């Protein structure tokens, strides 16, 4: 019995397109420990803890661009700040859609640490989160498999303007556009 499970998605959303995917996400099973798990061959996204425990053994595979890591939502972006350029993909897990820590992890990876590569949301990833995920720096989304991925794609185009700065927009609205003109159709004050 291996002490891990592999999860793969046939298709994910990447750069606003549905694409085939050949990565697998490795999850430790209950009694699996990061230092004993044997990472199988192929393109594998391993838990951050496995990378930390087996860094030396995994360096070669990373160099061949066959290795990614994933952050659990309670892990902090800066724990691997010097290794970021080694991974072909970094994923962030959303154990539940209501757990918003992954947004800060993504923000910190992009803004604070300057990570440039693929940043993938995994776990409980639903259409209605994609827009904010995109804004925080994700560019790939392994959406929930029991949902239509083409429907989910629509989640990326909900808003055409946003108020605040984030990863997608360096500048807040007030620095991007002159503001303040009243729209012509506004009839506030005229009653309803």
């Amino acid at each position, binding site marked *: 019995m291996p002490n891990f499970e592999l999860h793969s998605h046939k298709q994910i959303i990447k750069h606003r397109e549905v694409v085939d995917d050949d990565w697998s996400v490795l999850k430790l099973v209950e009694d699996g420990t990061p230092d004993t798990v044997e990472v199988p061959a192929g393109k594998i996204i391993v838990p951050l803890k496995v990378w930390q425990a087996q860094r030396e053994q995994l360096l070669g595979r990373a160099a061949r661009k066959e290795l990614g890591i994933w952050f659990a939502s309670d892990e902090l972006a800066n724990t691997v700040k010097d290794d970021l350029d080694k991974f072909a993909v970094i994923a962030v897990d959303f154990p539940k859609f209501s757990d918003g820590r992954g947004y*800060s992890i993504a923000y910190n990876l992009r803004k604070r640490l300057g990570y440039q590569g693929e940043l993938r949301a995994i776990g409980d990833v639903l259409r*209605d989160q994609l827009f904010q995920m995109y804004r925080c720096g994700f560019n790939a989304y392994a959406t929930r498999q029991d949902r239509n991925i083409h429907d989910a794609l629509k989640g990326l185009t909900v808003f055409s303007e946003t108020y605040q700065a984030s990863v997608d927009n360096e500048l807040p609205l007030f620095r991007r556009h002159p503001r303040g003109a009243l*729209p012509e159709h506004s009839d*506030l004050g005229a*009653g*309803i």
Partner: protein
Amino acid sequence: MYRYDQYDHLIVRERIAQYRDQVRRRLADELTEEEFLPLRLQNGLYMQRHAYMLRIAVPYGLLSTAQMRMFAHIARKYDRGYGHFTTRQNIQFNWIELEQTPDILTDLASVEMHAIQTSGNCIRNTTTDEYAGVAADEIIDPRPYAELIRQWSTFHPEFIALPRKFKIAINGAVEDRAAIAVHDIGLTAVRNDAGEVGFKFMVGGGLGRTPIIGSVINDFVPWQHLLTYTEAIMRVYNQFGRRDNKYKARIKILVKAVGAEEFARLVEAEFADLKDGPETLTREEVERVAQWFNPKPYLTLPSIDPRAEHAGDKAFANWLQRNVKPHKVPGYASVVLSLKKTGVPPGDATAEQMDFVADLADKYSFGELRVTHEQNLVLADVEQSKLFEVWQQAKARGLATPNIGLLTDMISCPGGDYCSLANAKSIPIAAAIAERFDNLDFQHDIGDIELNISGCINACGHHHVGHIGVLGVDKDGAEWYQVSIGGAQGNESAIGKIIGPSFSAPQMPEVVGRLLEVYVKNRVEGERFVDVAQRLGVAPFKEHVYATPIPAGAKVGEDEYA
């Protein structure tokens, strides 16, 4: 007041389209109820005891008359003819059909309103002083800053799924009228020695299960850094706030666990990266927003004493004394329209009353209204010479009860009549107390007192900071009420102390009566109830209240809540 530009309109419109589609998907079962829940909550839609309840944002409590008329319209068309103004300066409608909510939002958008982030684990409506812009003790008008926070926090991508809800209050005056000490972030405007404006940041206040007064983590954050400093706090909270237990998930628990000093250090480390970044406010942006709050076209008027003209009219004099507040511009005053008429749930207004107050505001107060966190409405800019007229008209509609700040001006949450979380009813308790002490002479003699009632530990009725606080508790399936005294909001915020075992509903008016007896017996000139309660402590009150059994209904209960 603030007016939407094309971007504000666009964002609200796109939100409605998004939400309309979410409702469609829910009805088509493409979304499970579990998935739909956070989506509808972020749009202020709760499932309550009888029906859906929709909470609409009134940003910092400021309303145009067109907006108020829209509430009347919603009350008539989609609800049962009334709405409920809340302690968070919003309005709630209690009888809403899910299918109709997108249309309600469309109606609201036509008057520049929405229900964005009125619930859910995100940054909620930022509240402020109902006298902002007209108070004589004001350091700055906090409303432009509240609007800047509103915009910055609207759909903030990173802070949309926080450990728990998040509430910011901002006060621009010497006296805190925004209850900042019991908010997740409480901001006070300050000036430094050089006369520059900044904000004192209090963090980690809150009521609910664990009531805590916030801690000051920075005495002076220059106004330019308002949003970036707030962002630093939010990022610390998002990463480190507890998520394993929803009762320990508020920022107050984090601040308490790590200590205010350490928390401040974490925030500073985060802020170091953000300081002077693009989200730093510019003078142009603050001025752009502030222009909407510019002084009204006030007339040059003499200050008059309206009392003099109507000497001998005691009812008018009472109203002037309680419901009319001083104004920084000579010849003007602010009027509080009481939503606390005996027999009406605190904060409730009918569609007819809403239309009527809109007419009043158009005629007498530059077409603007405010909602207070004590659940009343304010006409902020009334000419003193018009006060008598305003009083007569308001009186005819049941909105001139001269009880502002008095015993019957109670705060009460909706409680068991509407709220599915309630342990006990609140509205009938408020009504029973109001009925017993309906006598205005008695109330005026008792003077300033705040009685706050919550139907459960969530503390929506702010019972912890009531001079007298009443909390509904459940004991063996029956409804009981726990009483505390000595709580206070404002500059001297304090959490009240429980006086002893809880009471049955019919006992409550007598309990309040006995508390007042102790007060009357012990007060010295000018002392308010809360002053006496804090000076003497719980003991003499407890002694008197429990000295003899309280008649009416059940006997005083022994229970574990005491």
